[in-house]
């Protein structure tokens, strides 16, 4: 640590006013505060609530995502070798997945932070840490076979249009990671959905050896045929095709535990989201006999608790619906927001087979609605207090 401090001290004059690299001061500041507690103090009154700042918060969320990431690496390799019909050792599967996923993480961070640096230098403000979490989330919600440049374009779009135009970290209306995914989903639909993209079936030479192999996700299966080949246990543990980080409910629950224990993720949103999804699942179970087509009928008849472990529902609810910036801010607002996220997620995935990932659209939709919910919660509170005042006066 002393070494870092010495290096930072020795290069500091270059970045200060009048130095050679004055323009790059935000970059220096970003690295310095990443390693050490910032030396500057707040200008107005102190607002210390506890000993945690934005960087620590972000790092905790990243730690919570590690189980899903590691499982995703193994699962990608596992599905790949199973599709080829080869049986290989645990480590080989893991390494194969890592070889595919680490480049995605590197691209996501490299491009995203690069865009942030450029904006910091132009706008002359400090580097904001908001991208640290998005950069890890984005690879986790992409299919394994997506070309890296598509990831890069989606990241640029999400950071510039989803975040920087609104004023940077903390000002964005939409969750940046989901903005990236929605962009990729609508821009490159053939690489983001269907039954070919979730499992890599090519050998080292890049030739697809398994013709006619269907690697549809559980949701894709259910939407087209109304049934799925995967068992409940597979879905819960995550041995199913899907976006890299979303498959294993267990790994996500570990992450959820970390977020809840440290108090960083809102338990209100997670719980109410769960309730919303259960409510919609129960409604579907009840009305299943009246569905218009046999496929939809069996999709609706899927037990409500099974809906919770399919697709990206758990991942989205734990890591993205709880995003403190784009979610509702008020306590009562969080209950409403979370409930509707879960409710719409199940509704969209069942009603519209073209959009199996209902959770993505549900969260983005509720992100847009969150300020409205907050507005009415606050107004209701003001009215309530006004009434109380009137009663007292009278």
């Amino acid at each position, binding site marked *: 640590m002393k070494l870092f401090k010495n290096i930072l001290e020795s290069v500091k004059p270059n970045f200060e006013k009048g130095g050679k690299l004055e323009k790059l001061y935000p970059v220096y500041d970003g690295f310095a505060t990443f390693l050490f507690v910032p030396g500057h103090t707040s200008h107005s009154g102190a607002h210390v609530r506890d000993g945690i700042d934005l960087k620590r918060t972000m790092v905790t969320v990243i730690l919570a995502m590690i189980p899903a990431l590691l499982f995703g690496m193994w699962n990608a390799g596992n599905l790949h070798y199973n599709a080829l019909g080869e049986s290989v050792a645990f480590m080989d599967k893991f390494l194969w997945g890592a070889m595919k996923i680490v480049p995605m993480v590197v691209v996501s961070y490299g491009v995203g932070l690069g865009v942030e640096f450029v904006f910091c230098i132009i706008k002359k403000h400090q580097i904001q840490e908001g991208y640290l979490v998005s950069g890890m989330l984005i690879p986790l919600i992409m299919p394994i076979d997506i070309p890296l*440049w598509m990831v890069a374009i989606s990241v640029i779009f999400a950071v510039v249009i989803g975040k920087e135009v609104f004023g940077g970290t903390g000002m964005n209306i939409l969750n940046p990671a989901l903005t990236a995914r929605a962009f990729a989903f609508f*821009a490159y*639909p*053939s*690489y983001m959905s269907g039954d070919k993209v979730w499992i890599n079936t090519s050998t080292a030479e890049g030739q697809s050896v398994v013709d006619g192999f269907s690697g549809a996700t559980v949701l894709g299966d259910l939407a087209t045929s109304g049934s799925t080949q995967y068992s409940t246990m597979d879905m819960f543990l995550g041995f199913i095709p899907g976006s890299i980080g979303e498959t294993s409910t267990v790994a996500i629950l570990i992450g959820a535990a970390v977020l809840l224990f440290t108090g960083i993720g809102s338990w209100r949103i997670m719980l109410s989201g769960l309730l919303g999804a259960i409510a919609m699942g129960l409604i579907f179970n009840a009305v299943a006999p009246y569905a218009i087509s046999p496929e939809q009928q069996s999709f609706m008849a899927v037990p409500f608790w099974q809906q919770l472990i399919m697709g990206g529902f758990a991942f989205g609810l734990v890591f993205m619906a709880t995003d403190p910036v784009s979610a509702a801010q008020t306590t009562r607002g969080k209950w409403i927001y979370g409930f509707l996220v879960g409710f719409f997620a199940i509704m969209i995935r069942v009603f519209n087979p073209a959009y199996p990932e209902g959770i993505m659209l549900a969260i983005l939709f509720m992100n847009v609605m969150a300020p409205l919910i907050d507005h009415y919660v606050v107004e209701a509170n003001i009215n309530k207090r006004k009434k109380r005042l009137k009663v007292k006066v009278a």
Partner: protein
Amino acid sequence: MAEVQEVKKQAKEREALFSKKNRQLISDPLNDSNPITVQVLGICSALAITVKLYPALVMSISVLFVLSAGNVIISLMRNYIPNRIRIIVQLVVVASLVILVDQVLKAYVYDVSKELSVFVGLIITNCIIMGRFEAFALANSPWKSFLDGLGNAFGYAWILLAVAFFRELLGSGQLFGYQVVPKAWYLTEGGVYSDNGLMLLPPMALITVGIIIWVQRSKNTALIEED
């Protein structure tokens, strides 16, 4: 009375056909008072028909004709239009011109006419046109109104064409229907490239217009509204 005469005298003084003021009538709407990016008029058609360049070009020419001709007609009639029914009169003028355009398009470029479908008719409701009639033609001489119409139509046209350029290039790899991105680059042909499907959807037109507005206002900070 003396004052009124003086004013009349000033107005009668012949202005050069392309005086600085008149030139500004054309150049201002191209940038600082652009109908789309600054006055935010005519957005609907900018979203709807900018998927490809050719329809956007045809649309621009139609608006150019309707706006400049309409401006001249309204300006010629400006002293005879009773104030209370001026909107109706304006509507009649636009509607006749639009029907004229629609018939010409149907006769000579039927394919494009089909593609533009309802949007030719909807030129009537294009806010730019009624806006210029109200704000300019009713109070200015025919020549000035003609220039104003040209300027605003060009301002509308270049935004439309710029948006359509990016949407067609990135969305379908073509320009004016000709393949620009080599076929061999596509992933399906063994390359690495793929068209951006989002560019073909209306939201991306809105975002492209937004980016143009962003660039324009960061160049000319006077346009930024105070909060």
